[in-house]
């Protein structure tokens, strides 16, 4: 599903050149739940951004659903992204001016889903996330856990093939964090491929593979048994 080869990402400012990713090779298959771990600055978020087609690599190859996308323009990436990828962020990234319902509805609007279908699908995922009763609330009126549940609902409303999560529990207490992780596992069980960046060993173990990174390189990869995550 995802294959990257010798992937490089270099940030250049006027005087300094920083290598964020240095010849990274990773393959992720459909249905996997991959956790990426590593200290701050190791390049895991950069990797997630490239995998999520938010950013382009500086070198190497990136095969996404059989497309070589490393040289894609923002417009091409946007097309692939909106139909295939759902994002979950540490800071939830909900639009403050939109209600719960409207936030979840957003990806459907941009994929030109009809209003009636949008309503059905948004209600369906809100029901699933147990957020239906808060559909008309604004993000500021919700707890952190609730906000992240809305963000998860938004990430999955389009039935994406891949869900990318960047520290999804980083801003949550352990109970809410646990809830979110269980939701992700559940989604994975239903067939969604999940790639998650985390600092937390506990959260990482919900996945079935842990990739550890250091200084822009993959240092280890561990497969976990199904039993470990439950």
């Amino acid at each position: 599903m995802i294959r990257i080869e010798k992937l490089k990402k270099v940030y250049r400012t006027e005087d300094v050149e920083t290598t964020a990713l240095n010849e990274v090779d990773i393959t992720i298959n459909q249905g996997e739940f991959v956790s990426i771990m590593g200290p701050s600055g190791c390049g895991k978020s950069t990797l997630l951004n490239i995998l999520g087609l938010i950013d382009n690599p500086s070198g190497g190859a990136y095969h996404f659903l059989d497309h070589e996308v490393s040289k894609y323009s923002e417009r091409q990436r946007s097309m692939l992204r909106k139909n295939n990828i759902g994002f979950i962020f540490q800071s939830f990234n909900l639009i403050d001016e939109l209600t719960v319902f409207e936030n979840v509805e957003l990806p459907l609007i941009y994929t030109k889903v009809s209003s009636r279908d949008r309503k059905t699908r948004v209600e369906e995922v809100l029901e699933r996330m147990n957020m239906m009763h808060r559909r008309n609330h604004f993000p500021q009126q919700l707890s952190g856990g609730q906000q992240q549940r809305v963000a998860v609902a938004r990430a999955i409303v389009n039935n994406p093939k891949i869900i990318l999560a960047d520290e999804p529990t980083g801003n949550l207490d352990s109970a809410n964090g646990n809830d979110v992780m269980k939701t992700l596992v559940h989604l994975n069980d239903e067939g969604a491929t999940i790639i998650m960046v985390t600092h937390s060993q506990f959260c990482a173990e919900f996945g079935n593979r842990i990739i550890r990174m250091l200084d822009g390189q993959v240092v280890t990869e561990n497969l976990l048994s199904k039993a470990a995550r439950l």
Partner: protein
Amino acid sequence: MLRNYLLTSLRNLYKNKLYTIVNLLGLTIGLSCVMLISLWILEQYSFDNFHPNGDRIYRVLENQYYSDGFVLTTSATPGQLAASLKTNWPEIALSSRVTWGDEKLFKVDNKVFKEKGYHADPDFLRIFNFPVIAGEGADALEEPGKILITTKMAEKYFGHTDVVGQMIRVDNEREVQIAGVMADVPDNTSFKFDFLLPLKDYEKNNDWLKNWNSNGIRTFLMTTPQSPNLNEIPDLKEYLKTVSDQDNADLLFQGLADMYLRYDYKDGKYQGGGRITYIRLFAIIALFIILIACINFMNLSTARASTRTKEVGIRRVSGATRGMLIRQFLGESLLLSIFAGVFAVVLVQLSLPAFNELFDAHIYLDFSKVGVWSLLLGITLLAGFLAGSYPAFFLSRFQPIEIFNKLGKQGKGANWFRKGLVVTQFAIATFLIVGTMVIYLQMNHIRHQNLGFQKENFIYMPVNGTLWDKYDLVKTELTNLPGVQSVSASNGLIYQWGNNTSSVSWPGKDPEASILFQTIPVELDFMETIGADLVDGRDFSAAFPADSTNFIVNERAAEMMGLQQAVGERITVQGDEGQIIGMVKNFRTNSLHVEQEPVILMHRPWKNFIFARLNTDDTQQTLGQIEKILATHNPAYPFEFSFVDKEYEKLYRTEARVGTLSRLFAILSIFISCLGLFGLATFTAQQRTKEIGIRKVMGASISQLSTLLSGEFLKLVIVGFVIAAPVAWLVMHDWLERFVSHIELSWWIFIMAAVLSISIALLTISLQTIRAASINPVKALRYE
């Protein structure tokens, strides 16, 4: 998607109330100004454009060339010209003479009023589209004894419009028959009248109309459809020389469309001015004001871009393309401008009466017309688009990666652009401040100009009915009033004498010399009454019967004649020889737009106006006494009088209006600019909270911090001034050149403008900067 955009926009506007109010207020004021000015411009352009053959209608002008290089361009033409042109030139299909506007007293039963109208030839109604709705049309103007009146006038005297065949008394001396009723003339016409009388009526008392060498009536022509532009027919231009003795004159034909907007002739040529100048001026001002309001929106939107980057990022990650985001942000500014547009329409509606009064306009919002809707909507959407386009492109250009990596900081480019916009705003505001100050000072200069006569406590009354015959008696009674110092009369008004002639000869005159002199027939005691000073000789006096042929000249006339000792010399004016018995100090005979003219005063009994110099603290009582005397001797006519100083002010009405409006627009533009500055200062203060906190911890005082925060804005205001000052100097210098007597453009005007704009800007931002500088550093740092 639209609903989603709309909701986000509305909630954003609601959430950021301060910025919404700043933008909304600025845009509302800006849009109101533009709407008002646009409506006024449309009205101005609509003048005289309702005549179906307008492109074939001309007003005849005459250029008279004098030996001193002066060229007089006048629409006063010989009485014989209209008929002669029509007869001799196949290109000319119709021609009509029209008087300048006559006031006549009408009486039906006990209803007595004065009305304004014209004497005109029958072709007048064939050339121009003034529909006759009952009775005869053009034919009614063939012979004396008939009249055409408007429905308004018919209603006024008869209570209905079925009045064809009825008689109406004119000037208390004769009855005329109403031959037709015309529709009321529209507001947008150069011809304002309620009645038309046959020109033949006028001819009876004005023999000069038969003289090819006397200019005194307007001539209008309509060409055949095949005719070229009349100015392209060379022989036609020189026609006067072939039929009259006016060998120093040629003809010029002004198209109807230009008559109202483009009357500005010098040296025999159109100078590009006239009312069109003020249309251009106010169009530019309108553009300035809306630009300032739009700049506020651009500045605040881009400055606050960082508060929207998260939203942009989420939308992009959710699949929005740049085009979609551009549409969203444009939609947001359009939404705001539509709100502002609605408020602006209300504001326009409320201010229209005052505007009409000030501009002497007749504009109104006719919502039944699609054109009005299109205009208002067009202006509103254009402003929304102008204001929103840059922010939309600016905000939508962020890439999601920049936003999530918090790299979405604005580059130097945006910063410079925003600074440029503030500079532009303040350059415009400063320009308007300088302009307003110069106009104000010049108008003040005019008011206090030594005119050579005393315009205060000085009234005039038209001579009508039996006043001409009873003048001496009336004068004696008026002079006996304790509040009246002296009384005299003349055939013209003190600030617009009508007669001039070049038929003047004096000892030692160059036979080739042809100079135009103003001639003013006056009664006794003229000098004392108008308050002019004699520098040599004496005034006309009853003690010298020969004074009926003598003359008094002004200094300018003596100078033009080259006479060292004018008093005592004998001169001939229009064939009458007499002696110069006095020389009067130059006094203004027209507005300060024109050079001082050479004047010859003669003692002739041609009285159109009685002048009275008052000498009283109780003007009302004296006026009451004057009214009583006039009512006794001239009972058929209502008492009419005017104060000379008030009428004199009217000569500068256009300038006064421009002055008032530029003052208003200057204040508005400064207000809108300051609104923007206030918004920016507030935002900057918020943005720099952490910096302020650190500086305070490091020991910075409130005043140091306030200076730091204010300094950057002040720099922009100063740059704006530096740009505006030379432009303002050039434009205002050019404007002042229009006046013969004008103020100097002193440096202190510019310094004052600078001090004013800097003070206002400082005042605007001080509240925000002091508040920001006073913040508790602990709080400031915690905030971050």
